[in-house]
């Protein structure tokens, strides 16, 4: 197997890799980490981990990881390359977090790591061991009472197909709780890493604006 040189730009790696019979997460991540796609607020820990990790051959060792999700610890034996997104969806059956692109470009997979939004498709599970992961399923209170942002999304019809919604809500919670919802312009800027192809944007902004007031009071 021949691997294209690492200096290759991201945008062409897909097509070139296809021909050379090579596909790995590494090239993609190298490119993505340097491109401007990631919102600045997103941590890059997972990205760096991925860069060092994904050059491994197809047979990779598995490790045991303790994953703290929504307040519960899960012990899993996972392939070292497993992303947090796949661990959540495929091993913990937490399918609320969506896979939109798997390439760090759409925001559908946004979860919180120690309260900060991250893209779970770019984060290796090994890198979050011992840290607190919160997903859309963990946002409501134990008695089922919704987070004000969840309620605001419902009240403002801030979705159509709903596929981007869990990611939008996780970013929106961070936006509101991190005091980044000062104006509509600030909200729009903060939320611009979360694509909504149905373009429910006006209602998303309205929901966040309303939730901000709710959270404050």
């Amino acid at each position, binding site marked *: 197997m021949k691997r294209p040189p690492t200096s290759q730009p991201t945008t062409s790696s897909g097509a070139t890799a296809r021909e050379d019979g090579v596909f790995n997460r590494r090239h993609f991540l190298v490119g*993505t980490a340097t491109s401007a796609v990631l919102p600045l607020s997103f941590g890059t820990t997972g990205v760096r981990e991925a860069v060092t990790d994904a050059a491994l051959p197809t047979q990779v060792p598995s490790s045991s990881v303790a994953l703290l999700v929504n307040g519960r610890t899960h012990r899993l034996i996972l392939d070292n390359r497993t992303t947090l997104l796949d661990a959540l*969806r495929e091993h913990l059956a937490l399918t609320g977090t969506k896979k*939109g692109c798997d390439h760090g470009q759409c925001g559908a997979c946004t979860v919180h790591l120690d309260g900060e939004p991250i893209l779970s498709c770019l984060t290796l599970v090994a890198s979050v061991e011992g840290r607190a992961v919160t997903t859309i399923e963990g946002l409501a209170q134990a008695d089922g009472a919704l987070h004000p942002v969840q309620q605001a999304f*419902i009240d403002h019809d801030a979705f159509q197909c709903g596929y981007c919604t869990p990611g939008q809500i996780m970013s929106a919670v961070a936006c509101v709780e991190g005091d980044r919802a000062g104006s509509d312009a600030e909200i729009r800027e903060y939320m611009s890493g979360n*694509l909504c192809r149905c373009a429910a944007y006006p209602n998303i902004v309205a929901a966040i604006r309303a939730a901000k007031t709710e959270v404050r009071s």
Partner: protein
Amino acid sequence: MNLHSAATAEPTTIRGGVHNTLAHDSAAKHATGAAIYVDDIPEPAGTLHAAPGLSARARARIKNIDLSNVRAAPGVVLVLTAADIPGTNDVSPIGAGDDPLFATEEVEFHGQVLFAVIAESHEAARRATRLAKIEYEELPALLTVDDALRTQSFVLPEHVMKRGDPVSAITHAPHRMKGQFRLGGQEHFYLEGQASLAVPMEDGDVLVHCSTQHPSEVQHNVAHVLGRPNNAVTVECRRMGGGFGGKETQGSQWAAIAALAAVKLKRPVKCRLDRDDDMIATGKRHDFRIDYEVGYDDQGRILGISFDHAARCGYSADLSGAIADRAMFHADNGYFFEAVQIRSRRCKTNTVSNTAFRGFGGPQGMLGIEEVMDAIARERGLDPLDVRRINLYGDAPRNVTPYHMQVEDNILPELITQIEESSAYRRRRQEITQWNRQNAYLKKGIALTPVKFGISFTTTHLNQAGALVHVYTDGSVHLNHGGTEMGQGLFIKVAQVVAEEFQIDLDQVKITPTNTGKVPNTSATAASSGSDMNGMAAQAAARKIKQRLTEFAAEKYKVTAEDIAFLPNRVRIGNQEVPFRDLVKQAYMGRVSLSATGYYRTPKIHYDRETASGRPFLYFAYGAAVSEVMIDTLTGEHTLLRVDILHDAGKSLNPAIDLGQVEGGFIQGMGWLTSEELWFDEQGRLRTHAPSTYKIPTCSDRPADFRMQLLENNPNREETIHRSKAVGEPPLMLAISAFRAISDAIASIANYRILPRLDAPATPERVLFAIEELQARMEAAE
């Protein structure tokens, strides 16, 4: 629940009937992550994963294909090629035989599927596909519309619509001009990619959970590939994470791969496309080249016009025939042509086969005439709005379309007047002209454009729908119909219709997944017709049951049918009232069937394609938008400053849902016309195959000042479901105003007397080129 207190409360209306502003039925599930899409269905034990192996050439003969390394790769269970197909190697939606499941001797586009790997994990399947050794003998590839026109390469024969004698009308007109306009395609980028999960059943049958707008067609195609009758295949879809036309035909291939493997291996198989593969291997909106010639009078009134459409269809026909036809049906938009000819050519190229996309050719047709409107206005030195106005459909004889249909429900003149005033178009036009004189590098532009969009499938037989309604003995209702939910709110609208019919609260109506085993032989959820048709079918089913309940009650309580009325959650029988659920229970005991199918076929429509005449549409949906933009003439970038929209949804079934469609449609159209650019290289490879390079509107791209309104007191003149109008597609075309506003801003440089040469999408690069080209023309003229 305490029945007595419910009875004493005697509500005067039900909760959740028609015309109510209601949240989407899945709202709470979306907000908590509980809504289940295909990829979220708990995988049955032993589920395997499929990934397609794609061609790396745009056009080539396959000299040799060696899959031994693929088969030997870790985790691989099976590799499928055309040789494994027991039935027909074709997934064409129209049975054209030109959409192979797996290409065999020749590949016809870069990204065409050659084989599929079935492995223990998605990752293992994807990795293995890269190990194929394929020897290609490259053949010359046709990539563009111009390549195809030059070599006369078409997927389908050309089609012509004609009324009057346009050649003579143009020749004798006081003014004439010719022009050419190009517009780009569009990637759907439904946030949920293509996904199918096939579960083997007994007798070699298969159940396919598929993210599709057209379960019946997936069923037929899977059966076709398996060489089994349709009754061996069941397709189910609860919801899609977006469709936009991209799941009208494009789901069949992946469903068929999963089903073929599942039946062969007797194990469940999931085929969920990786995003890159999805963007490379599935069809997009057709890009067009439009040539026109027009003759007009001093006021800009069109006397004769001829259009030449050339659509890039890609390597196969898919739905290109109907799409290119719809472009022709909308070449007039809202304008009357005294003499007209529209010729349409369906170009075959070595690119992915283009397919349905919200508007289905309509937007392309409309863009052509809106370009002409501006061209005439610039040449005449008139406000483009005045040229648009003078050309609008009016009273007979100015009410006949190029396909000889009379426009009977035209509301554009009044609608335009209303938005012209509410948006203060005239005043702002003056202010902008003034502002532009004072600003050298930043320029503003404004445009008001109308939309008239024909509702019904133009293929007449598709205009039929079915529904299935059960009432259970506790009074709860199970609703099923042939329409699919992709976020557009179809399911809640139809549920509202059924709740209204029975006069029961909406939460008594269970919305259930679309399933070919419940309602068969359905049409795609497309052409914006979902609620029109399925709403009517569900209403018909509910009415049958109501009728039976009425007859039963009349007999049991010894009253006449006229003495029976369905009131909110109860039924008045003579001078007593019985809770709905009690009457249902009594009817069951009295051995009355509480289940019914409903059926609807759209009335009045007919079309003869031979003569290109008839009434292909039951009615038209209208709207208009005013966009104001500012461009930076040094960078070509633009900002959308303000958008006003007035849209016609008839008497809306659910204004909240409809407003969402209007704003979403506008923004999606704006993306298509201003930022989304599909770029293929000389080898025919799509280089913009991820959102990093393909720019989809984000939250910060929505116009800062966005004023949207549904037209009020405006019931559909046709007898549609509760007098509502279809709303899925028409609003996308409101975004043409944004494109024309950019052109207007550029035109200000030449004092609004020259039409800029601006093709769509109006990316900063194109805007810059248009400015430079315009300046060069001005200098040449001096």
